[in-house]
Structures are given as structure tokens and as C-alpha cells.
């Protein structure tokens, strides 16, 4: 059974067609990277996956059920920024996931239940290498460490689907390389299904098992809003890794023409 399926999915804003003709099915464990020019509806698609953007037409299914119209613990998310809560420490930011699920009234744990939750949070933080920064606030962390924290936080609820919206876009190249290794490792270990938006095509090919290119399927210069973007390339990367660089080059040329 496919994990995520789209059938004739469309998104319009008034008369402006943003996305249309979206048909795909994604299996559990796939790592889908999404590239495309800015304004082509990549983020709109991710918001539909999150449930913060409504569906105009067609279907978006998770395990054959329509995707809920609001965010939930089955779909974790990491944004480019504002992903972590500024008023909580590193530990607090991860602990809060346990606290929210185990203490419905106060959203806070005390005593032995807190110690248990702390263990779980520590485990996550160790996975991303933040075990030595437990009492630091986000503003005391570098951009890369903030994103590590955001990833640890997103994985606390053990979501099946992880949505990443240009999570490494603001990071230095060297740090980005570390983050790639981290995400790849977590994706393998926890059998995640990942949808990741990026504007870096090399990153898309380096990380994804499947690369989607979002672009308008038809362009009418007299009515630019009449046709929306769709998946113009759907490339299986893992099966033919060796020609990935040439494919990346080809797509980059296409997008800039």
C-alpha cells in the first residue's frame, strides 16, 4: 500500500492556478526531494501535506485516508527558521513533545514522569549531537545547531512522515554537509518517509531517492495565471546513481531557460 497518494490534486487562489495535475504515489521509506523555481508552488504543496493549506480539487491521501485539515503528530516538520520555541531551552524544546502528549491539562510533567520524559528527550538530543547544550536557549545556538534541535524536536513524536521546508537553506556549506549526513542517518534508522524542499539541485540529488521538479506544464504569456505547476520530472535516483550528476545539470539548464 502506498503511504501518500495524490489524485488530480489542484490548488487555486481565486482564478490563479498554483498547482494542478498532481498525481503520484509515494511508498513508505522514500526520500522525496522537491526542486523548482521560486513561486512554483513547492511550499504550497508542503503546506497541503501539513494541513495548513486547503485542497481546491482532487485528493491527497495518507494510507488511503484524506489528509487531515490541520497539523498533527503523524507529520513532523522542520522549517527554514522559527522551527524551535525561543522561550524554551534545548531540553525544554524536546521535552515539550512528551509533556504535551502525557499531560493534557498542564502540558508539563513533574517528578518521576518528567525524569522518564527527560530520558527520551536526551536520547533524541544525543542522536543529533546536542547532548552538551541542554540548558542553552535557541538564541545561544548557531544556525546549524538550531536546525539540529528542530529535527530532534520533530522526531520526538516518531512521525512516519517528515516534512522539510528548505531546512538547510540558511546554513554554511560545511555545516550543510554535516546536516546531510545526519538526515540520511536518521531517515535510514527510523524508516522515515521524507518530503524535502530545496533550492539546491545538488542537495536534491545527493539526499533524495526520488527527485521531483515542480514547474508549469504549460505557459500562456497572455494569461500567466491560467496554468499551474505540476511535477514535470519524477526521477528515481537510487537506481541509477551514476548518471545523477548529468541529470542534475540537465534540470538546472531547463529551469533557467
Amino acid at each position, binding site marked *: 500500500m502506498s503511504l501518500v497518494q495524490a489524485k488530480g490534486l489542484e490548488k487555486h487562489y481565486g482564478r490563479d492556478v498554483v498547482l494542478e495535475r498532481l498525481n503520484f504515489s509515494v511508498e513508505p521509506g522514500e526520500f522525496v526531494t522537491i526542486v523548482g523555481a521560486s513561486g512554483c508552488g513547492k511550499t504550497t504543496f508542503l503546506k497541503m501535506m501539513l494541513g*495548513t493549506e486547503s485542497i481546491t480539487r482532487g485528493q491527497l491521501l495518507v494510507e488511503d485516508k484524506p489528509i487531515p485539515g490541520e497539523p498533527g503528530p503523524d*507529520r513532523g*516538520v522542520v522549517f527554514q527558521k522559527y522551527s524551535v520555541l525561543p522561550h*524554551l531551552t534545548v531540553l525544554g524544546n524536546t521535552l*515539550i513533545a512528551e509533556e*504535551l502528549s502525557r499531560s*493534557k491539562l498542564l502540558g508539563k510533567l513533574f517528578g518521576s514522569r518528567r525524569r522518564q520524559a527527560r530520558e527520551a528527550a536526551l536520547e533524541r538530543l544525543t542522536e543529533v549531537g546536542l547532548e552538551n547544550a541542554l540548558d542553552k*536557549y535557541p538564541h545561544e545556538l548557531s544556525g546549524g545547531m538550531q536546525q539540529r534541535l528542530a529535527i530532534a524536536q520533530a522526531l520526538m513524536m516518531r512521525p512516519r512522515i517528515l516534512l522539510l521546508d528548505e531546512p538547510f537553506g540558511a546554513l554554511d556549506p560545511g555545516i550543510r554537509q554535516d546536516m546531510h549526513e545526519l538526515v540520511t542517518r536518521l531517515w535510514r534508522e527510523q524508516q522515515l518517509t521524507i518530503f524535502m524542499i530545496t533550492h539546491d539541485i545538488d542537495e536534491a540529488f545527493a539526499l533524495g531517492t526520488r527527485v521531483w521538479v515542480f514547474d508549469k506544464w504549460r505557459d500562456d504569456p497572455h494569461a500567466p495565471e491560467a496554468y499551474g505547476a505540476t511535477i514535470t520530472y519524477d526521477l528515481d535516483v537510487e537506481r541509477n546513481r551514476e548518471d545523477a550528476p548529468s541529470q542534475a545539470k540537465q534540470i538546472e539548464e531547463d529551469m533557467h531557460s
Partner: protein
Amino acid sequence: MKRLINLKPRRAARVALALLPFLLIAFVYLGVSNARHAENPNDRLLPLPAQMAETFAGMATEANVRTGSIPLWADTAASLQRLGIGVGISAVAALVFGLLSGGLPLFRAPFSPLITVVSLIPPLAILPILFIAFGTGEMAKVVLIVVGITPFLIRDLTGEALRLPNEQRIKAQTLGASSWQVMLRVLLPQLTPRLISTTRLALGSAWLFLIAAEAIAAQEGLGYRIFLVRRYLAMDVILPYVAWITLLAFVIDQALLWISRWSFPWYHVDEKAAS
């Protein structure tokens, strides 16, 4: 020569520059006051510092024959109590309603237009109504402060809640948070330091409403005293009282700032970077 916008005073110069206007005002006052007393030793309008100090010491140590209490401390206690209760009620109400209004669109839809209109009512214009409704006792004065600053605080907190990045709310929901939990664990902790900083701004208005209410109907209070002795042109009481009120306001303001910095270090990151 650097541009004017890039010239910053060093630490020592900054302290000197900060003191300069105060010294200047004191110097001008002393000059004019001395000149007037040289002409007329009984001048009441600009009393000499020694005269003010003597009167103020009397107000602070000698009990009033009629009431049996020491005026300065009785006035200070009465005013601070009214101010404390009024501002306290306002702050709690603002936090609750700001949280609801900033957190729940369905609450905000009918509530926000109402509070916008209410905040435009000049509070002093309804002071007579408050006196009619609550009598001239403590209640009317406290209610005036509450009516005066609560709408402003609510509007500010609602705005602050709406300015928080939506990503935070979404993230909390992906961690399984309910509406209640989002308000309790995401919005409330971030609105609290904002409440403190906005309350610091609102304290000026709170003092205004307090003194206005005390001026019209009271038996004690800092504002009451000032307006009482105005009849005798007793500037030697009024000026020290104004200075005393200013000192109290300054101490309260700095105490709130200190509490906020100590309890919410993450909230004050930007201001440290700016200074």
C-alpha cells in the same frame, strides 16, 4: 570626520551627558528661585531647596493632628495600594483576554472590534459615571485605572500574539498540542514578558488616572495632597511630592525591568545586542 550618526559617546561621556540636563535644570531653578527670594523673601512660587526639604521632612515625620497619621506615608500607602490593585487587575485581565483573542480566531472575531472601540473611550470622560456607580470610595479609583489601561494592554498583547511566527503554532500541533496546550505552552510564556514591558509603558497612564481620581474625590493619596495644598499655593509641598511620585514611578519601572530580565532572559536578547 565621521558622520554624525556614527558618533557614539564613550561610557564616561555618556554618564556625563546623561547628568547634564538635570544639572542644567537644577542650576536654572536655583538661579531664578534665588533671584525671586532676593526681591521678596516670602515668595511662595519657587521655594528654595532648604525650605522644600524642611517641609517635606515635616510631612514625612510629623503626624497630622486631625487624622493622627503621618501625611506622606499615609498618602503613599493609599496611592500605591490603588495603583497596585488597579494595575494588577488590568494585567491579569489583559493576559487572559489577550491570550484568548490572540489564540482563538473565533474569540477574536467578535471581541477585537469591541475592544478597539472601547479603548477609544476617554477614561476620564466616564469618571463621573464611575463615581455615580461606585461612589467616591476606593472602588471608583481602582476601576478608573482598570478601564483606562486594560483595553490598551489587551490590544497590545493580541497584536504580539499575532506577530509570533505561525511556524511555532504549527510546530506545536505537529507535536500533538491541543488548542489549550498551544495557548498555555506556546503563547502564554511569550506574552508574559511582553505584558511586563507594556505595563511599564502603561504605568504613566495609570498614574495619570490615579491622580485625577484622587484630585476629585479622596481623603488621602498623593494626588489628593497636591490638589489640596494647591489652594494655599504651597509649592514647597507640591514640588517635593511630584519628585517623590517620579521616584516611585522610576523604582517601579526599574523593578519590572529587572524582574523581566531575570525571569525571561531570552526575551531581552535583542535589546542587549542593540545597546
